[in-house]
């Protein structure tokens, strides 16, 4: 056997080990595989590349992508080109964290456990909740997690979703719902936001009612009223929120939500063609025993020293098995750690400034872009413009000029083929917005 990949087996190693085992060849070790299912030819996969050639191959693939360093982009719709501070890359490359497993042996893992405890604290602070888990897969699956909690908590089976909740989030909930024994109802928007009376009507017999703030159109919902509408109906009120907005916008816990969920990518993660990122889920204390995923708790050791451990593990699959609160094992710890580090780096002042810069740029875009607004509603960092030609066509033409102007909402919303959703982050400048305005004016004439 030649030494391939990351192996270290020399001929001397091999003979010593075979002798210790008491067999004469590696084939003997695979005798337990019945003949009928043995694979007898070489794997038909591309050839091995040494590291320098490997990097070259990947550089060639990467060069064929129009990323935001090469194309001026105003794409949002749930994933945003926010700045990831240098400190994040430094710590995510520390091998003691990067290559560690889930901290089941706490004495080996105080670093990760403390980081998760701090992350849980930060999420609770931002969302106004009592308990957060150590992360979910992404902003879509945490909505399914919330539905699973609501099913058991209320005994009801109806899920109410605002139509202005991100389309992918709604799709994932609809995929999971049948297995939970739940059915999904959607509440259509009224001029870009949800009417609380309509929401209340559907929530009356629902287990859960989920809305998004800011919503998928970039509009600000009447969130306190939507929460109240759900609560009055006996449904669990859940806000799907953007961490980057919570320096300026009120915490869901402060206006009466039972749970807060969302996609954490906007704080601390690169766009990375959709992942990996981290979903967050936080709730009031009464839900602690129903929470899915890992939770870190504080305790002391034999000598009274403070330390951290995974706690309430009896909720989880490795103990409770078919009665677990979720099947989740692997989560998104490393990405959540990036989120924590970014929140510490920003601090409360920085998070407020982030919200202010984004909303200021959005206001500037409304002024400069010569297109009417699609919805007469207050907005945050995304603005929906009405286009005179289909928005998809606007995107195609603008890209020819080196600008990706935003997301054509018609892809997900029938009747909105002429609406373009433009996202403004602190990585865009007023000059970038001027350029967008010029390009849009060219392509829309």
């Amino acid at each position, binding site marked *: 056997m030649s030494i391939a990949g990351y192996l270290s087996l020399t001929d001397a190693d091999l003979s010593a080990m075979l002798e210790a085992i008491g067999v004469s060849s590696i084939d003997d070790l695979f005798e337990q595989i019945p003949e009928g299912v043995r694979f007898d030819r070489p794997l038909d996969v591309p050839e091995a590349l040494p590291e320098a050639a490997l990097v070259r191959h990947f550089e060639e693939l990467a060069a064929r992508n129009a990323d935001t360093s090469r194309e001026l982009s105003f794409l949002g719709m749930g994933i945003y080109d926010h700045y990831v501070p240098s400190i994040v890359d430094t710590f995510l490359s520390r091998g003691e964290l990067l290559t560690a497993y889930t901290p089941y042996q706490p004495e080996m893992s105080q670093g990760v456990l403390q980081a998760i405890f701090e992350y849980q604290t930060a999420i609770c602070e931002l969302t106004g909740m009592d308990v957060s888990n150590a992360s979910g897969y992404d902003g879509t699956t945490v909505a399914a997690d919330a539905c699973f909690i609501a099913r058991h908590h209320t005994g009801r089976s109806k899920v109410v979703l605002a139509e202005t909740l991100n389309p992918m989030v709604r799709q994932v909930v609809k995929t999971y719902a049948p297995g939970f024994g739940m059915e999904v109802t959607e509440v259509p928007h009224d001029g870009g936001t949800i009417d609380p009376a309509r929401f209340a009507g559907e929530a009356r017999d629902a287990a859960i009612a989920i809305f998004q703030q800011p919503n998928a159109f970039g509009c600000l919902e009447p969130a306190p009223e939507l929460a109240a509408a759900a609560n009055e109906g006996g449904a669990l009120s859940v806000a799907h929120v953007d961490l980057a907005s919570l320096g300026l916008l009120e915490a869901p816990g402060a206006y009466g939500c039972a749970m807060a969920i969302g996609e954490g990518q906007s704080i601390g993660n690169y766009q990375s063609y959709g992942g990996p990122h981290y979903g967050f889920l936080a709730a009031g204390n009464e839900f602690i025993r129903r929470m899915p995923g890992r939770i870190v708790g504080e305790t002391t050791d034999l000598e009274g020293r403070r330390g951290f451990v995974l706690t309430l593990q*009896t909720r989880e699959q490795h*103990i409770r098995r078919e009665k677990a609160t979720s099947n989740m094992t692997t989560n998104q710890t490393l990405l959540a750690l990036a989120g924590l580090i970014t929140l510490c780096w920003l601090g409360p002042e920085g998070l407020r400034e982030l919200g202010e810069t984004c909303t200021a740029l959005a206001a500037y875009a409304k002024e400069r872009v010569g297109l009417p607004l699609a919805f007469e509603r207050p907005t945050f960092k995304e603005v929906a413009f009405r286009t005179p030609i289909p928005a998809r066509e606007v995107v195609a033409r603008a890209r020819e000029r080196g600008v990706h102007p935003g997301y054509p909402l018609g892809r997900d919303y029938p009747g909105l083929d002429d609406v373009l959703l433009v996202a403004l982050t602190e990585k865009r400048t007023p000059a970038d917005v001027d350029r967008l305005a010029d390009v849009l004016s060219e392509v829309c004439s």
Partner: protein
Amino acid sequence: MPPNESYPEDLRYHPEHDWARIEGDEAVLGITWYAQDSLGELVLFDGPEVGAMLQKDESYAEVESVKAVSDVIAPLSGEVVAVNQKAVDEPETVNEDPYGEGWLVRIRVADAGESDSLLDAAAYRAHLAEL
């Protein structure tokens, strides 16, 4: 500090590691030394309400330690007349004194004949030896 392994002679035992002390037409139920030892220190006793009907051989409660959850199996059928609040508030009592202060529920026995199928201490010990 949990006591040494013991299986009192005056109790009747269920193979799923539960005991019953029969007192006239009532019975006190709990889990055995082996059960509490396997689970480790209990952190939660999630029991039935007074008035609930227990069915022999079926689960009527859950006990949890940090590393395990276990169904508690009813050795006899009957109506719950009392739940041990001390086991609820201080679950470690079950480890410390599984047959005394750590009792779980008291029931009014539905069918006196059911106790015939339970094991005596010697038979339960023999059952444990085979595990």
